[in-house]
């Protein structure tokens, strides 16, 4: 393809010259998107200049993704206009968005793992050659681009062999290769260790310095403060504020995002209160009974790789043990093995001293296990069924909910009413199908069902995923309450803030194994980050 290769550098010089004028590179005005009667975006303005890193901040459901889907050509707004370089552009398709220089790095990567970096980057591009792709030239271009922006990428590497951070760099490069001048990153740090996130920030700063406009979607305030130059806060589909980041503070942003100040509960506060009332529980830790003991556990996918690799773990009464790690390092599988959804290849699992390695789920529940699974839609709830049916799912065979196999509707109604009341489930009534509840209310049903059994062992996997701050605070308070009631809690999460706020002890998983364990007092984010990358600290 003669004539296209120098375009990359030429384009940037144009952009930089544009930067000197006062017209923003991207200017979205009065964007309105509705789904039926629901208004997802209402009169949203967003202007981003070349060379600017602009944070788009908001809770789940605030309308960030909707706005970005409009920009990426995946949604046509009901009202509003989009200007690129001051010119109104109707973006009607993803292809058009690409032509205009808009590139998006999705949270879940769109890469073919068996292909090389160069093959993935060129996928679907006619410019590479329709029948016989000229990958050599492409690889050279990729190398050049990578050098320009400080991206460490080998064009001939296979995607499957790259780390998550490496794959993310490929996604960024893919967008740049397609001529992106406006780069959207959707929660890019969710899959990274803190160190990897730092590396990403360096790349983004270098891109901005050379004229790219970057939209950084996040709900992590410290990242927004550290990286971005401007910030737009969305709440309930509307812009609450647009500000220069340096002139705001994390606290103020949080308040704008949530609409009210909500303090997430912390174990530290509990410990301070306990210290005031008597000796610390930790002093007699060795003497406490183990609720859960995992010994040399190995799990493997059917005819596949080892997912849990010789894990040893103890959870004692009255403590929260956090399992940290980058997503996909065996935490999910460990939790499944403990609750009985996955069989162990070798090793043992004991609950309250009883070996349950080969026991079914029912036996583990009888011993006091409760499970808050990561995927509540698939694993926890029967969505077409009512709140009432879901409330009694694990206990239908127990008195008083049934006698001699006959269901006692009244007893179940009592349980359901108690869960709706105690866990503040917002619903039209016990007959409402669980699938029609909001995510937060669904999670309250899951929590309420688990905790109404007064479990001695609680396995909670990503218990706050997809919840707003208010619901997260509620979930965290419930976990702390279980700890106070003497239950053992195993908290699996990829959110470091969550782990740090709630755990008595933290173990870190990497590639199926436990890299190390940190007591609450010894934890620093740096040490955790190193361990999450596989280095024992």
């Amino acid at each position, binding site marked *: 393809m003669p004539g296209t290769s120098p375009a990359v550098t030429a384009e940037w010089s144009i952009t930089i010259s544009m930067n000197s004028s006062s017209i923003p590179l991207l200017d979205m005005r009065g964007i309105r998107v509705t789904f039926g009667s629901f208004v997802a975006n209402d009169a949203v303005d967003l202007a981003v200049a070349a060379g600017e890193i602009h944070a788009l901040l908001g809770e789940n459901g605030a309308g960030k993704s909707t706005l970005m889907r409009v920009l990426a050509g995946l949604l*046509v707004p009901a009202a509003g206009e989009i200007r690129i370089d001051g010119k109104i552009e*109707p973006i*009607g398709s993803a292809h058009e968005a690409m032509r205009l220089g808009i590139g998006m790095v999705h949270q879940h990567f769109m890469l073919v793992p068996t292909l090389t970096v160069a093959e993935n980057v060129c996928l679907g591009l006619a410019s590479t050659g329709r029948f016989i792709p000229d990958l050599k030239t492409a690889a050279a271009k990729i190398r050049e681009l990578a050098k320009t922006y400080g991206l460490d990428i080998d064009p001939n590497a296979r995607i499957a062999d790259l780390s998550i951070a490496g794959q993310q760099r490929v996604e960024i490069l893919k967008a740049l290769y397609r001529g992106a001048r406006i780069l959207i990153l959707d929660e890019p740090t969710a899959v990274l260790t803190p160190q990897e996130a730092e590396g990403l920030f360096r790349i983004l700063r270098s891109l901005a310095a050379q004229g790219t406009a970057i939209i950084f979607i996040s709900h992590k305030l410290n990242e927004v403060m550290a990286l971005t130059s401007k910030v737009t806060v969305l709440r309930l589909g509307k812009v609450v504020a647009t500000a220069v980041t340096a002139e705001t503070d994390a606290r103020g942003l949080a308040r704008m995002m949530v609409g009210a100040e909500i303090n997430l509960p912390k174990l530290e506060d509990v410990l301070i209160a306990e210290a005031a009332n008597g000796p610390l529980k930790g002093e007699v830790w060795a003497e406490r009974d183990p609720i859960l003991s995992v010994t040399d556990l190995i799990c493997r996918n059917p005819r596949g790789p080892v997912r849990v690799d010789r894990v040893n773990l103890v959870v004692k009464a009255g403590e929260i043990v956090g399992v940290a790690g980058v997503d996909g390092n065996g935490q999910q599988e460990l939790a499944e093995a403990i*609750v009985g*959804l996955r069989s162990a290849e070798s090793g043992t699992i004991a609950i309250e001293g009883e070996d349950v390695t080969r026991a*079914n*789920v*029912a*036996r*583990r*529940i*009888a011993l006091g296990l409760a*499970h808050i*699974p990561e995927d509540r839609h*698939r*694993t*926890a*709830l*029967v*969505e*077409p*069924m009512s709140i009432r*049916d879901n409330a009694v*799912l*694990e206990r*239908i*065979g127990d008195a008083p909910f*049934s006698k001699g*196999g*006959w*269901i006692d509707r009244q007893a179940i109604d009592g349980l359901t009413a108690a869960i709706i009341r105690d866990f503040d489930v917002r619903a*039209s*009534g016990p007959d409402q199908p669980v699938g029609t509840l909001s995510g937060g209310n669904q999670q309250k049903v899951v929590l309420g069902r688990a905790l109404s059994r007064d479990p001695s062992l609680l396995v909670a996997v990503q218990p706050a995923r997809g919840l707003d701050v208010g619901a997260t605070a509620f979930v965290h308070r419930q976990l702390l309450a279980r700890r106070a009631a003497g239950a053992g809690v195993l908290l699996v999460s990829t959110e470091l803030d969550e782990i740090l706020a709630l755990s008595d002890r933290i173990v870190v998983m990497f590639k199926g194994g436990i890299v190390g364990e940190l007591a609450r007092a010894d934890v620093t984010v740096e040490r955790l980050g190193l361990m999450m990358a596989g280095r024992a600290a």
Partner: protein
Amino acid sequence: MSTTELTRAPRFRLPPALSGSIAAVIAAFLVGAVLIAAVGVNPLTAYGALFEAALGTKNGLAETLVRTVPLALCGLGIALAFRAGVFNVGAEGQLFLGGTAAGAVGVAGAGLPALVLLPAMALAAMAAGALWSGLAAWLKLRFRSDELITTIMLNYVAIHLVSFLLHGPLKDPNGALAQTARLTADARLPVLLGGTRLHAGILIVLVAVVLAHLFLWKRTNGFRLRVVGLNPRAAENAGMNVRGTILFGFLVCGALAGLAGFAEVAGVQRRMIENLSPGFGYTAIIVALLGQTNPFGVLAAAFLFAALQIGASTMESAAGVPSTLTTVIQGLVVLFLIGRAALPLIRDWFGRRFGGGR
């Protein structure tokens, strides 16, 4: 009503599932009417003749009820299996084996009192049907074979196996045809209405419908069955025995289809014959779907389809509309039932194609 304030209280509303079934039937009859008109007949005349024949006379009503029996029993079994997430299309073969077992026991036990012989025949029929669907269950649970394939294949095996038995070991030694000897009076279901073929099988149906209803909505195992069918992973996470429940779904379907075979043998044919069923086990799949896998709904759907089939030949002779029209209507009912889910898609497509667009 003690629930929260509803801004607009619905006066009376059918459950969406039920209204969907009724709509599908009405739509099928409307399209059928167009076809009848195309033949040059007044649709009202044709439908009038059909339902007059099926419901308007003592004998017609009796025949409709006789035909309701196998459709309802098989439909009930298929519906329960559906509820457990099992798509058993093997009721036909299970019915044939059930009928054969009933016939064999009935012939062998000649001389025993009816109170012993009839239950023995029924139990043998249920066991044979359950055994046959149990085979498909084993294939699914052991090898993850899709029951949609295995049950339909096992139908052919079953029907040919029955044919072999009727030509060989079970053949009436005093006859030329491939059938068992005639059952004695004590091996027959009593006739309920003199001068008709209406037999006590319809009472078995009513009992089965009530029992199935109680099981699904009042018993813990019925609750578990519904949970497994809707979300097996959540069922497992809640400590339920998912594999056992799936096995049960297969077995109960086989047993009920086998019982239908017994009712046909002991109530209608009075011996096991080679062509026991004109596809009851297949029509029953539509019956289960149209009845929304609800026991009383299944009964109503079975009655409707029985009436259609009984009235069809009269419609042909009285109004000159081919009786195969009823098959067309059955097919249309299925299309409209399944197609209901596609309605929003079709609307969207039209909207994109001919609506505002860009």
